[in-house]
């Protein structure tokens, strides 16, 4: 899979989050926290991770998931994993 820009990753992630939770794509902003701002629980987070791995062609191990606190953390992780 070719590498994507941060904006492309953020947009793709917003689509996945919208599909799983119904949260509007525009609300998926870089500084938002998955749990506190977007109210995404640990199970939905796992579904999002599974779908992100498929969409972006990266591996996000279980022990990394807890470090992905904000949308920016996830976008940065995916970008570096793609590089």
């Amino acid at each position: 899979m070719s590498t994507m820009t941060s904006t492309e990753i953020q947009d793709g992630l917003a689509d996945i989050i919208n599909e799983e939770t119904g949260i509007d794509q525009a609300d998926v902003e870089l500084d938002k926290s998955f749990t506190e701002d977007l109210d995404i629980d640990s199970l939905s987070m796992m579904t999002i991770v599974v779908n992100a791995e498929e969409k972006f062609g990266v591996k996000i191990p279980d022990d990394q998931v807890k470090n992905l606190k904000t949308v920016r953390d996830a976008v940065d992780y995916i970008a570096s994993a793609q590089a």
Partner: protein
Amino acid sequence: MTAAPPAHAAPGPARRPRLRTLRGPEFTRLLGVGDHRPARIIDNAELCRHIDSSDEWIRERSGIVQRRQAAPEESVVDMGAAASRAALDYAGLSGADIDAVICATITHPWQTPAAAPVIADRLGTPHAAAYDLAAACAGYCYAIACADDLIRSGRAEHVLVVGVEKLSDYRDLRDRGTAFIFGDGAGAAVVGPSDTPGISATTWGSDGSGAELISQSQSWAQAQRRYASHSIGFPGDPVVADARPADPDAAWPFIDMAGPSVFRWAVATVSGICSQALDAAGITAADLDVFIPHQANARIIDAMAKKMKLPAHVVVADDIADMANTSAASVPLATAELLRSGRARPGDLALQIGFGAGLAWAAQVVVLP
């Protein structure tokens, strides 16, 4: 390298008698299903008197509304025998018609003897082959695969498959992440010969690299070494120094589960196994009438159905609301309930899949009896 035959070996194959083997019918099907739901209902409110949680949180995370709890004296064998009698009634057969009993369970609290021979004896099947099968939440679907093979090989004509668990004996009330999950119950099916295919080729497997995701908190031997007042070895044998946890409530081997990691495995991997099972059966999701996944968690079931792109007409088992997660018992319990309620009918095509500790999984398409 092949070892040379010993000098006393019999002369060449031409002089050996040809051993007789068996061959059975080409097809099998489920002839009946039955279940047993313990009388005592523990709703979330009652459970939350013992754990730090809430009805809302439990429903939201799992879809569980209540669970059944067997009476202290109600055993795995009792529950398994009750479900078996119901399955035999459904099939119009008696215990004497059964050639083999396979009991899928991980909570029969006797390392030996197995539960299956005792269940067989209770049913009046005095000489049936009988054994337990330990594949946790995949156990029933593993056992259906074995029953199908036993019959098609000619080894047995009618096989009774029992899935039964008394998980309340292994529930850790100190762990708010798992204490609400588990329930008690039993389901059973009678498998027999058929003129047409009624059980598809099974897709099964295991991945022991995920063994720690769902596991006893300690082995029986560890528990003995840590908590017995003295060594059970020979007098004078050294005591094996096995660290005893500070918490005295940790003395028992509870069932631990890494919930989110198991959830992830189910969504990422088990959905794909469902699709493989449909391919192996030579059908597509559109051909299905019913989807009966192991009742692990309503969120897992929803995520699997979504990932499989299950058509809207397919009835999805939701027995978890009533029974919680009953491991090896959940698929036959859900099957019996779907047929009893009329949401599924005899002749319907159902995809059933068990998945869990091991990790282990098995799936097949069955024609409902």
